[in-house]
């Protein structure tokens, strides 16, 4: 068990068991073997120094550069996206404004047309009514005239008829004035 060790730093290395058996040797617990300290310290100094150099000169600048470059790309892309979004928002707003304008304009146009048509219709109606009224008045005039004429004729017919009846009954042609007076009385009665 003790072979392979102890060759390095001189004779008095050994495992715990070995040393206990030997008795009296200096500490054989490997981490406390002080004659290995110098070698470990030198190795550690060289190894850690090397690591520090590699890390500080090469590795960290490179990885940091990669991360920074990515961050930059992300920032650029995000800015671009924000700009595009702002553009599209503006476009949407412009479209909505335009649409509202167009709608208002269309409405105004429709109102105008409707009012114009209404006015024309009113005018035509008024004209028609006027012409109808004048025709009606003329017709009423004609009727009145015709009736008056007809009524005049009725009197002369009645007078003639009354004369004829009296002549036939009495054989004497009556006096026109008497007939007229009798007619007047009859028409009054």
């Amino acid at each position, binding site marked *: 068990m003790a072979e392979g060790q102890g060759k390095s730093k001189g004779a008095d290395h050994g495992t715990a*068991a070995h040393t206990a058996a030997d008795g009296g040797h200096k500490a054989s617990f490997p981490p406390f073997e002080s004659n290995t300290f110098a070698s470990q310290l030198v190795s550690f100094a060289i190894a850690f120094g090397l690591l520090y150099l590699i890390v500080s000169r090469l590795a960290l600048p490179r990885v940091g550069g990669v991360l920074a470059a990515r961050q930059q790309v992300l920032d650029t892309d995000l800015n671009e996206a924000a700009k595009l979004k702002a553009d599209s928002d503006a476009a949407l707003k412009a479209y909505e404004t335009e649409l509202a304008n167009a709608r208002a304009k269309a409405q105004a146009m429709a109102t105008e047309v409707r009012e114009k048509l209404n006015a024309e219709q009113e005018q035509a109606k008024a004209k028609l009514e006027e012409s109808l009224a004048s025709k009606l008045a003329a017709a009423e005039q004609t009727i009145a005239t015709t009736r008056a004429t007809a009524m005049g004729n009725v009197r002369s017919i009645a007078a003639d008829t009354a004369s004829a009846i009296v002549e036939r009954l009495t054989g004497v042609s009556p006096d026109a004035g008497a007939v007229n007076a009798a007619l007047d009385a009859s028409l009054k009665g």
Partner: protein
Amino acid sequence: MADPIHQFEIHKIFTLGHIGNQEIAFTNSSAYMFGAVAVVSLLMLGGSAGRRLIPNRFQSVAELSYEFVSNTLRSSIGEEGMKFFPFVFSLFMFILTANLIGIIPYTFTVTSHLIVTVALALMVFLTVFLYGLYKNGLGFFKLFVPHGIPIYILPLIMVIEVISFLSRPVSHSVRLFANMLAGHITLKVFAGFVTSLSALGAVGIFGAVLPLAMTTALTALELLVAFLQAYVFTILTCIYLNDALHPGH
């Protein structure tokens, strides 16, 4: 039964040189340290090699690590803490990778050695102390003089603050070390039960089911601990660095 301590042993692979009488060797621990460095470098450099705008999985992991550490740092220190980002990132990734590699069976866990965690913690401590002095001058010592404390208990509070400041690297390093060490010993002990029980024959094999299930559950727990301890170490580092930048509480 397998020795649970065996996994922590350090073996020399070859000798690098000597400092005084002390031999400086390239050990298995060194190999795993460089392994961790290689894994982190591969992940971060390989992952970001494509520089893809939309990351693939590999690149996602690299970016995730970057953002995780930078968010942790930013939330506890703020934007001015980002000058410590490479340092904190190296710490987090080194500890995390070393911890995770250690969970793979037959591997060595770099962070289970106190000397390594002490080195890590002292590095943080010295960074905080020296940068705090450099940035704030003597104003850094306001860290030990909290606001709104009555003058008659101020000396006592100052002593407590100084002791707590000085004990930071101890708790900082021992927490990581002890967690990794204890976890790996527990895992090894339960895994050892499986082999020793199943050596007993049919009944033993039946009995070994329980420790095997336990080992499986513990491995899952160790995965959590590996991440959590790396994170705890990092967040404490951030809190300590925050003191260096803003000593006035």
